[in-house]
């Protein structure tokens, strides 16, 4: 059974949890910029947490389904509706065949992830259904979703079928995950970071600027990276570095002195000095940034970064167990 993107929106692509395991071939990780949001949405829709969904940037999307589906969305502050009924983030809802699901432009944040029961059933390429828009493969023919486009959905899993029956009358479930799991857009975002090994290659004032001043998100930001305007981060030495691995979260500084926070579609290697690395649990905050937003950076220890990651995973495990009664 298919879904139809009546309106594709500003920038919509198919994403799952990305294609780990191919970095040595120069293949980007890819996947949802907030993988945690997609995992939560998938679990609520009765899917495996790694099912492919839609990453919707700046909204403007309208969808119809050929059969009944559970949908769950998470992300920024969007006005989402099924027909004329408003749907809040994190609430599983039934969309009947032919009904219209719409997601308008956001009041805050920039991206939303939509899980559809059954998942989006495009072919798996290099271990993932994610669209690699730069290299042009995966997802829907390696490109963005287009207006009027039809795409295949997988079959509803038994757990989703249970939920569809339960929601026949109330349509929208009253339960949802804890608030901050489904809406990480922040008013004054602070990204916590670990100091990069190359931080010694910068003058002292650059490190002070980085940790104390605000930076503005530049319009030429995308899924590869967020370009930042702010105080120039000056290096203490002007040497060419050999390229080595970089990853989502890496903050590299080209000769312009303007830092770039790398995201999931970044190259696998880079030769610019790495001043910092944003911690994994804060990348969802970065995923909501829009041009003009002001952010700050705050240093944490590796120990704290790992403790936060562990806490998030343990909470998700508990949440997964807590969901079980809803699918029985």
């Amino acid at each position, binding site marked *: 059974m298919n879904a139809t993107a009546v309106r594709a929106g500003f920038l919509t692509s198919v994403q799952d949890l990305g294609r780990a395991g191919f*970095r040595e071939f*120069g293949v980007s990780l890819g996947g949802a910029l907030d993988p945690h949001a997609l995992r939560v949405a998938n679990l609520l829709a009765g899917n495996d947490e790694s099912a492919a969904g839609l990453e919707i940037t700046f909204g403007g999307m309208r969808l119809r389904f050929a059969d009944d589906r559970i949908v769950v969305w998470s992300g920024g502050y969007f006005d989402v509706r099924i027909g004329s009924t408003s749907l809040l983030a994190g609430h599983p809802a039934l969309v009947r065949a032919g009904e219209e699901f719409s997601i308008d432009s956001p009041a805050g944040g920039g991206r939303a992830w939509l899980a559809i029961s059954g998942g989006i059933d495009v072919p798996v390429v290099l271990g993932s259904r994610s669209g690699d828009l730069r290299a042009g493969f995966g997802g829907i023919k390696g490109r963005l979703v287009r207006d009027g486009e039809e795409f295949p959905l997988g079959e509803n899993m038994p757990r989703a079928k249970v939920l569809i029956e339960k929601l026949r009358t109330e349509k929208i479930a009253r339960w949802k995950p804890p608030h901050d799991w489904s809406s990480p857009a922040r008013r004054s975002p602070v990204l916590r970071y670990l100091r990069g090994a190359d931080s010694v290659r910068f003058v002292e004032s650059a490190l002070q600027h980085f940790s104390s001043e605000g930076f503005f998100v530049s319009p030429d930001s995308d899924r590869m990276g967020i370009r930042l305007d702010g105080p120039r981060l000056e290096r203490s030495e002007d040497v060419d570095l050999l390229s*080595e*691995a970089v990853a989502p979260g890496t903050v590299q500084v080209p000769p312009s002195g303007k830092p770039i926070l790398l995201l999931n579609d970044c*190259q*696998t290697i880079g030769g610019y000095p790495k001043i910092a690395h944003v911690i994994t649990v804060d990348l969802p905050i970065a995923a909501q940034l829009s041009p003009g937003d002001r952010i700050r950076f705050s240093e944490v220890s590796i120990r704290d970064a790992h403790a936060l*990651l562990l806490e998030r995973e343990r909470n998700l495990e508990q949440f997964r167990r807590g969901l079980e009664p809803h699918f029985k």
Partner: protein
Amino acid sequence: MEITPLGDSALLIRVAENFDDTPTGALNRVLAAKRALEAAQIPGVIELAPAYTTVALFCDPVRAIDAGAPIEDVFGWLEQRIQQALKSVAASKAFGADRGRAGDNFPAYNSIEVPVCYDQEFAFDLDEVARNAGVHLKEVVDLHCGADYRVHCVGFTPGFPFLGGLPRQLATPRRDVPRKEIPAGSVAIGGRQTGIYPIKSPGGWNVIGRTPLQLFDPQKDPPVLLRAGDRVRFRSITREEFERATK
């Protein structure tokens, strides 16, 4: 050997101090380290990415914790296991050994001949490279085809091989203003390296020809023609041969 965090989910292992003096030595150390780390099957490790003098180890800290790593020192726990795995590498005389892992899908590094058409239409910057080297166009082609290359790293775009072994004379600085679009298959020189653009992309290297070979095919396993460690030679082909090969 220096091991530094690359964020909270990766470690960068510097296995060679220096690249320029002994590129082949560095490459062999990197490849041997990667093999040893793969064989060690350290809990929580997701993948290994080699580049020039380093191997990056990407991990899931939560899986490492589940396997016994202390929450307050996950990286210390991993580092211990990395050092242990690489001990044998440091002691082994087999550093120069040019073999893959036993039982590996890729038992040995390949030697691949890459046909290149150096026709003017494809070679946007052949003139610039010749001028910079102070030689005739034909000599550039002869020099480029006369050398043995090895892949030191794959990256930039999927399947892009960074090749060491370029004759010093051909070393040409990158263009001041990168091109917005370089066609797939373009063979180019950037500084002291040569490489091949597998897919259409922007780029700042000096383009000297084009190969009809497909360097990246996501439907294949492995998806790339060239991997770190592989040996490469270029062979000059005519425009007719190029057209035939792309049919």
